[in-house]
């Protein structure tokens, strides 16, 4: 019989604590997967520049997508979020949901809320989707139309009610621009009334359409008021609805992430993997490499001199983010 060894003390720090460095993990903890760049809306602030007919020419085939799904499962990625564009517009959206949700992976669906019919909500419930995050950038139809031309505010609210009646968790996302930032409190209240478990927002990311539009950004004064209101809402709804927001701008975010990369990556509709939503850096391609290879490239990518240089540029001139429209392969 083998001699038993004394175990390392389990309660010595850090037996447990908040996140360690991303390099320590063998796979991402969180994957944001943009299923398609097509969308039925063309919102003024969309950082992905999605819209009708804007699907990439070479988006992944169903087979390629299923290969990614099976690797997400085998690598035990705990949390995946489907987004886009509008994920419902992917021709095989529900099949992908069915293949991933409830298989030990927590799946969130980020949507514009225009596809929440009784049958789609029942299906989402059936498949065990963890939550649906709806972008709701306004508290009334008029502001909504300004932010999301072609959208239908009442339809979104009705879809949300259907979702809730089917017992699916709801989260709400709010993107502030000059036109709607003053409504953030009302939207938080509306979200709570609709049964949302979380309300998420942050500074406007000036990339894609938001960058091109040029005059969407709220003033710093309005932002101060915005964050003050959010802190109040967080306190008001504590324990009942999580109110979470980043007050860091993209430049500060990039700097922070360079020192502390999150164990999170973003899959584009064509299988390429980005370092961060708002950055143009691509670190790998899941059509050509395995998930764990791309994960290793991801970790290396954050250390790349190109990223460091970009970070320095942003420090000097935060508007630099608006000028980079092409993707850079690391």
């Amino acid at each position, binding site marked *: 019989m083998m001699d038993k060894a004394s*175990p390392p003390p389990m*309660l010595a720090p850090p*037996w*447990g604590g908040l996140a360690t460095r991303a390099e320590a*993990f063998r796979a991402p903890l969180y994957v944001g997967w943009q299923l398609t760049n097509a969308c039925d809306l063309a919102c003024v602030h969309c950082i992905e520049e999605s819209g009708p007919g804007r699907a990439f020419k070479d988006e992944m085939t169903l087979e390629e997508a299923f290969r990614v799904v099976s690797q997400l499962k085998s690598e035990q990625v705990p*949390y995946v979020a489907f987004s886009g564009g509008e994920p419902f517009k992917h021709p095989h959206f529900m099949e992908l949901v069915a293949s991933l949700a409830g298989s030990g992976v927590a799946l969130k669906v980020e949507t514009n809320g225009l596809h929440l019919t009784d049958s789609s909500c029942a299906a989402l419930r059936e498949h065990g989707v963890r939550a649906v995050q709806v972008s709701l950038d306004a508290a009334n139809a008029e502001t909504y139309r300004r932010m999301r031309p072609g959208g239908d505010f009442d339809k979104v609210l009705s879809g949300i009610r259907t979702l809730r009646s089917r017992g699916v968790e709801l989260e709400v996302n709010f993107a502030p621009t000059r036109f709607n930032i003053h409504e953030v409190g009302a939207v938080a209240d509306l979200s709570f009334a609709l*049964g949302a478990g979380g309300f998420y927002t942050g500074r406007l990311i000036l990339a894609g359409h938001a960058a091109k539009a040029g005059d969407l950004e709220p003033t710093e004064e309005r932002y101060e008021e915005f964050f003050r209101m959010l802190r109040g809402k967080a306190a008001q709804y504590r324990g009942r609805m999580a109110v979470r927001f980043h007050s860091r701008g993209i430049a500060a975010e990039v700097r922070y992430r360079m020192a502390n990369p999150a164990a999170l990556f973003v899959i584009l509709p064509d299988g390429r993997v980005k370092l961060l939503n708002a950055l143009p850096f691509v670190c790998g391609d899941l059509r050509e490499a395995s998930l764990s290879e791309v994960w290793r490239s991801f970790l290396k990518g954050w250390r790349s001199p190109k990223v460091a240089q970009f970070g320095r540029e942003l420090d000097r001139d935060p508007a630099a983010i608006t000028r980079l429209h092409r993707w850079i392969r690391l």
Partner: protein
Amino acid sequence: MGYSDLIRLGWRTGKFLAPAGERLTRERGPRPDPEERRGLIRGEMEEIVRREAADALGCLAPRGEATMKLAPFVKFREEKFGAVLFETRSEKVFTLNPTAAGVVREVLAGASEKELGERLLARYADPAGKLQGEALTLVRQLKDKGLLTD
């Protein structure tokens, strides 16, 4: 001022009086009608009850000092440094060193608190006699953090 602000003021000052000239304002936003609210909670209850479902013939699972499991929304994954617990609701990440990971693994395999001590002692030496106590403290801390549940 809102009601909670008033209460806080009372705690601070010892005087439960609204300052002169202040009016109490409603804090809450638009109120949905009761039927709608009930409907919303109903959806949530269906989910909760599904989670707490018990097969009467199979696992009329003894509650109390018995088997534990991961709390809802918590995922457990082995890592080279031990393991990670990921709470998908708050997106909080907790890392466990190899021994702590071993404790959680035993718990998830169905060890009760009593069996946990036995299984650990079968694997590790315990000259200071602290192993079982530390394991139980760890389990309790994880329960307090909402990562494990009965």
